[in-house]
């Protein structure tokens, strides 16, 4: 006798599959943003669930900041190949060279610089929709964003003028030059993502698990000591057993001291955690409205 009832992961999964299929059916040239991070790994599994046994009917796009963890890029390339998908990579380095991205004085982190590169890639391939792995539990501005997040001709998000989203009826209509960002994982929490990775036995890059790394103490957290922003003699540098909880620019991604070697360990750790995931990203600490400002400018 079947119990006709979905548990929370089944529910989140069917909601996300429905959204992915709406994108495939209603847009001409969609893409999936795939970084190799845990959220986008879930996105690709959902794409398999939505479209198999056919090929996933959209390419994967990654904006490489040039400050990525090497483990992440290796994983990204391998996973895309395993799925038989077409991976498009556009880099901040290339954009800086060509001059359509310009580094602000004193700016070391490259999160901001990904914006013009993403917008240029959208224009180059004429993508009308990009599926991203953002979740509403990550941050207060994201808590107000829709599944189908409309962007104007400049890629901007207008939080005060969002289309109402009612039932499961998504309005994906665009005029030329406009663009949609779609977030099938909107209702997922960090815990849901890890539980899904466990349930689906998905591989994740090694940096999510505990490993030894030389770290430097900056702005109250340990970040990887790298050539990109070498430690100053006055800074506290240590070899620690750490893992990352969320992955951004390597120079500003906080490493947490952790013995977690398996997905089960990570789930237990999150259940006991006292700091949110984004608490370990310096880019959101700049001001309370940091994410809101980046999104208005066209960020993911």
């Amino acid at each position: 006798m079947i119990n006709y009832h979905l548990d929370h992961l089944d529910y989140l999964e069917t909601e996300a599959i429905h959204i992915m299929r709406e994108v495939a059916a209603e847009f001409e040239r969609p893409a999936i943003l795939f970084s190799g991070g845990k959220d986008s790994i879930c996105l690709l599994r959902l794409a398999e669930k939505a479209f198999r046994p056919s090929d996933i009917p959209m390419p994967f796009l990654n904006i490489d900041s040039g400050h990525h963890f090497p483990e992440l890029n290796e994983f990204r390339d391998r996973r895309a190949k395993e799925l038989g998908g077409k991976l498009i990579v556009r880099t901040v380095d290339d954009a800086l060279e060509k001059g359509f991205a310009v580094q602000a004085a004193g700016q070391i982190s490259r999160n901001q610089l990904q914006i013009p590169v993403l917008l240029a890639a959208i224009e180059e391939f004429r993508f009308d929709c990009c599926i991203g792995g953002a979740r509403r539990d990550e941050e207060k501005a994201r808590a107000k964003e829709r599944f189908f997040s409309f962007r104007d001709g400049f890629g901007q998000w207008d939080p005060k003028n969002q289309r109402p989203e009612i039932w499961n009826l998504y309005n994906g209509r665009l005029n030329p030059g406009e663009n949609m960002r779609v977030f099938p994982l909107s209702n997922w929490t960090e815990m849901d993502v890890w539980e899904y990775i466990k349930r689906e036995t998905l591989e994740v890059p090694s940096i999510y698990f505990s490993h030894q790394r030389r770290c430097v103490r900056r702005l109250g957290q340990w970040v990887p000591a790298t050539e990109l922003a070498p430690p100053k003699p006055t800074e506290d540098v240590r070899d620690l057993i750490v893992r990352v909880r969320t992955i951004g620019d390597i120079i500003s991604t906080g490493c947490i001291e952790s013995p977690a070697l398996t997905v089960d360990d990570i789930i237990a750790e999150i259940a006991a955690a006292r700091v949110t995931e984004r608490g370990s990203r310096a880019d959101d600490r700049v001001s309370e409205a940091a994410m809101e400002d980046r999104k208005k400018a066209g960020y993911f």
Partner: protein
Amino acid sequence: MTAVHSHPIDLLRLNTCGSVDDGKSTLIGRLLYDSKSLMEDQIEALERSADITGGGDINLANLTDGLRAEREQGITIDVAYRYFATPHRRFIIADTPGHVQYTRNMVTGSSTANLSIILIDARQGVIEQSRRHACIASLIRIPHLIVAINKMDLVGWSQQRFLEIKDQFEEFLPRLDIKDVKFIPVSALNGDNIVTRSIHTPWYPGPTLLGHLETVHIASDWNLDRFRFPVQWVNRPNNPTDPSLHDFRGFSGQIAGGIVRVGQKVMVLPTGFTSIVKQIWTLDGPLEEAFCPQSVTLILEHDLDISRSDVIVDTQDLPGASSDLHAKICWMNPRPLQPGRQYLLKHTTQSVKTAIVSIESRINIATLNKEFGIEELCMNDLAEIRLKTAKPLIYDGYAANRLTGSFILIEPGTNATVAAGMLLPPSEVARPEYRDFAI
């Protein structure tokens, strides 16, 4: 920490509604705070903003007022979603503001909810705004309602006052279509009866707010009666390397109602072709049966011409079909709705052109009375209208099925979503276009 658990049972979606200053944001902040769903950095950020804005005490409302503009003006401007968990359940809160554009936001926040919390200020009792909340919850057909009578500390924890307000509300209930209503005396500011039982209410025998949220029965909130499967995407592998996939032709979608089984006889509408379900395909292997709201891919015995916007249904229980529609709508755009105007109507997986034929009546959402002789609808109006579509819609009444009975209207040109619609029961059952082809 007990706030998250690796094996929760299910997911409850709720929305909260209240007027300005009745403590809605504080209530949500309190639920998150007392269920230990807040993290150190969030508490730290709260304390930081308390220092800046003065006052000294932590302002729980700061947790939910996310956007810069909101913090500046001290109001909530849009629907925000919050997540928390207890060992028994996961929760998604749609936090809907209670001022301008209130109806539009509440309709949005309620459309996916199992339960709605209405907040009433114990000093003020049931006001027009409370009645509006209840009416919208009823129109959207939210299965469960909690009336949280807040600020009980400011009326001396008076049982008499609590009962007065309960009576005021119950007077109104017979007009509504809500079966499960619970009244709880609380103080969100101090945390009484939110997560822990209050020492001030020995006269109240019921559960705390969270206690009720954890135990309310939601298993039957989805429609399992009549099989409805709007086709979203035709699944046909291109040049597959696996020869067994050469003839694969599946129909992918989310089940919008009922249960489907292998071997079941089904009809495709609007064409009326019938066939048998040969396989229910999923990435995790074939299923013997599937139910609403699962996402699956159906393979039928016969090779039929089926595409997005077609609906696969049970042959025994057909939906309605008509291009003359009668519906309740919530108007959500600053430009008024007038008869004669044309829009795009999105219903399940299809979009069709539609024209507004007439405005039958406007619903006074404080009394649920109908007002006639209305020439146009303004933002936040609820009304009954008649529409004509360019091709017949295959649908159920909203009361029978939320997913096959709802639609949105999109304005051509701006592409704005201008209305949410709930269809009244169809007067005609779908008649297949090609009866002769029935197998």
